[in-house]
């Protein structure tokens, strides 16, 4: 694919990113307004809390995934990493390892998995799709082996209470999104490493000849993605109070969908931090609304699929017209 300009995602004009962010925000607010009119329960503090909690984990995964997609890669393993790290933290806590150490070790496992992906891609020359697909398969197996197919209970009260707690009236899970999003924003949009991610995604040879350490940049992207996934593994373990290797199945696709709905281009070099966040909460709102409206869960799937098509289509349209 060396000579095609037509297929490259046309890049956004000045302010386009922000404008698209606003369009998405508009869509989200519109959905909220609609649900507020259609149900009595949507705008209750309780439900808003629920909504924020429900979107949080996908949002964090989607941010991590976005780093990888910007480099024109993909990380299919994030769901498996979430399940696997939930097992790890449960296992550590059960073994009596102090909370802080369990958390640090779990995150380090995330770093290690990301580094392994980086190694596979950079040193072994494997396509990202394949190496992360392989990890996906193997990690679930290892997690199941560790637990012998069952679950590990977590009896650390402080840990399991965390996901239910509020701070300033906002669920702690949502605060975790903020905790991830702010440094992620600084990193991607304000620091030079963020620029390097875009450059590598656009043309890694040009980036390399410009002195960008392509190897390090790729490692970084995959490590960030896996670490975000490990962090979500911690949150999930806290939320469900157990470690179970089969959890979070298919979350990688949700994360990718959120990211793309948020304007990330799968061809690389186009993306932001706020986009995937909005994408994740749009998907969460659809599910939440469908539950409140008592929509058949099968219809929910159909609608989600259609909505992905519609949103991404309009994103394409907007970009094309702004050329």
């Amino acid at each position, binding site marked *: 694919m060396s000579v095609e300009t037509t297929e490259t995602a046309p*890049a956004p004009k000045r302010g386009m990113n922000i404008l698209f962010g606003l369009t998405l925000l508009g869509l989200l607010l519109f959905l909220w307004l609609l649900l507020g009119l259609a149900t009595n329960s949507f705008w209750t503090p309780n439900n808003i809390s629920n909504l924020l909690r429900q979107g949080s984990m996908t949002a964090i995964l989607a941010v991590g995934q976005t780093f990888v997609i910007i480099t024109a890669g993909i990380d299919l393993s994030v769901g498996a990493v979430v399940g696997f790290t939930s097992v790890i933290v449960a296992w550590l806590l059960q073994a009596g390892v102090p909370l802080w150490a369990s958390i640090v070790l779990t995150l380090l496992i995330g770093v290690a998995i990301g580094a392994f992906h980086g190694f596979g891609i950079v040193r072994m020359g494997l396509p990202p799709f394949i190496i992360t697909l392989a990890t996906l398969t193997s990690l679930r197996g290892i997690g199941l082996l560790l637990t012998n197919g069952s679950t590990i209970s977590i009896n650390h009260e402080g840990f399991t209470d965390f996901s239910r707690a509020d701070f300033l009236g906002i669920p702690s899970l949502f605060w975790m999104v903020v905790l991830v999003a702010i440094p992620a924003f600084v990193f991607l949009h304000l620091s030079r490493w963020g620029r390097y991610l875009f450059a590598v995604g656009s043309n890694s*040879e040009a980036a390399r000849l*410009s002195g960008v350490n392509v190897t390090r940049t790729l490692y970084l992207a995959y490590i960030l993605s896996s670490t975000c996934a490990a962090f979500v593994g911690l949150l999930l373990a806290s939320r469900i109070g157990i470690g179970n290797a089969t959890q979070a199945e298919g979350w990688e696709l949700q994360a990718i969908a959120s990211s793309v709905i948020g304007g990330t281009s799968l061809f690389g070099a186009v993306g932001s931090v706020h986009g995937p966040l909005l994408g994740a909460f749009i998907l969460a709102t659809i599910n939440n609304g469908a539950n409140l409206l008592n929509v058949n869960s099968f219809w929910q799937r159909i609608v989600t699929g259609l909505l992905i098509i519609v949103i991404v289509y309009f994103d394409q349209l907007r970009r094309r017209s702004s*050329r």
Partner: protein
Amino acid sequence: MSSFEELSHRHDDEARMAEPDSVPRGAPILELRGLQKKYGLVEALKPADVTFLSGEIHAIVGENGAGKSTLIKLLTGVIRRTAGEVLWCGRPVQLATPTEAISRGINAVHQEVVLCPHLSVAANMFLGDEMSRNGLMRQGAMERAAQAVLDDLGFHIPARISLGRLTIGQQQLVATARAAMRGIRFLIFDEPTAYLTRQESAELFRLIRRLREQGVTIVYISHRMEEVFELADRVSVLRDGAHVGTRLIGETSEAELVALMINRSIEQIYHKEKVPLGDVILETRGLSGPGFEDVSLSVRAGEIVGLYGLIGAGRSEFALGLYGRQPLSGGEIYWDGSKVTIGSERAAMDLGIALAPESRRDQGLCLNLPIGLNINLPVFRRLSSGIVIRRSEEAANADRQIRDLRIKTPSRRVLASAMSGGNQQKIVIGKWLSHGARLFVFDEPTVGVDVGTKAEIYRLFGQLLKNGAGIILISSYLPEVYELSDRLHVFRDGRLVASHPFRGASHEDVLTEAIGI
């Protein structure tokens, strides 16, 4: 009849069936009436009226971004016109798709090589027009035919290997052979000699003249004035998307064309600053690596060292090896007199080496990112304090390069892909000017660059030299290296075969050394 003519004959018959029209030699074959193209608000081509006569060689010249490639893309159905009319043999035609253009016998060799790197040379030449029998392709027959055409044209390229294994220049030749096979009535060349050496150019000119003898109409776009005067019958000039005139070649002069093109005059193109030479900055001793062997040369402050050679002579490989992109297999590098090892591109940059690579598409630019980001890419470290980038300096640096190099863009935020070929080349150069260094390696820096900017770039070279830098200039354009180099090295088959001081040998001698006869 040569195999090449046989093959074009095959097309000829098909085309005649599809298009019974024919016009006598010298009569208008293709007429543009108010042809226009807009990209959003950008008017890439203002309503133009141009007439092409059957069997002529019609040159088109103009500055970078003047709209030449746009015109070609309109004629070959790559893009759709915004307004206007095209008459083919006196009748209005759509030219909406490449297929339609091909079926009328119109074809082009585009500025950027557009072929499929994974397919074989033969498959590329027959793509979209395969020989088949009972629905199955005749692969052997196509390979033999393709090989025959390539041999006939004097291109030494095997037809069976994957296109991706060839150098850009060789790929360009394949594209040429292919177009010649298909564009049996109207054939357009968009800067075909950009990646060709002089010898190859000569082959190409012979081919073009031969085609004209067969009655094919040729449109020839080039920034090299001497080629235009050597080949063309008539010449049209574009300026800022507008057609500003057409002249018979005998009734015009280089000065007039340049004046029409840029609306100002330039005194001298090869502007050579006389800078006193300083100390040796870089010296290589017996450097070897993939594609080159045993290269020893040195560069002093204030000196331009020219590397000339044919396609695949190993100059680019030498530059990449020097720059740490590819591992060296032997030899030594001395920087300011002390031995160094250059393990990575970053190490080279930190020493003070800058490389403006050969292929802007593959190595030079992040096409789907903004111009500003491209220009700043090597210098983000300098533009950052701590973690964050100082955004005002980021903007200022990009804007300065855009201004200095006269890159034709409304803003630094426009994507590099929306720029014309020449403007893209300027971005690549701007990137390294903003980085600054003590040794600049320019690999084919003026490919596709218009005369005005060329002069500008040469003046910039002078500036760099005065600041105490040294330059390695790699070029396949002999007049350029010849006129600018303080020392001219000739490469052949990966080895340095000859060296001359400034104007120390004639053009012919240098060429002979490069070819090796």
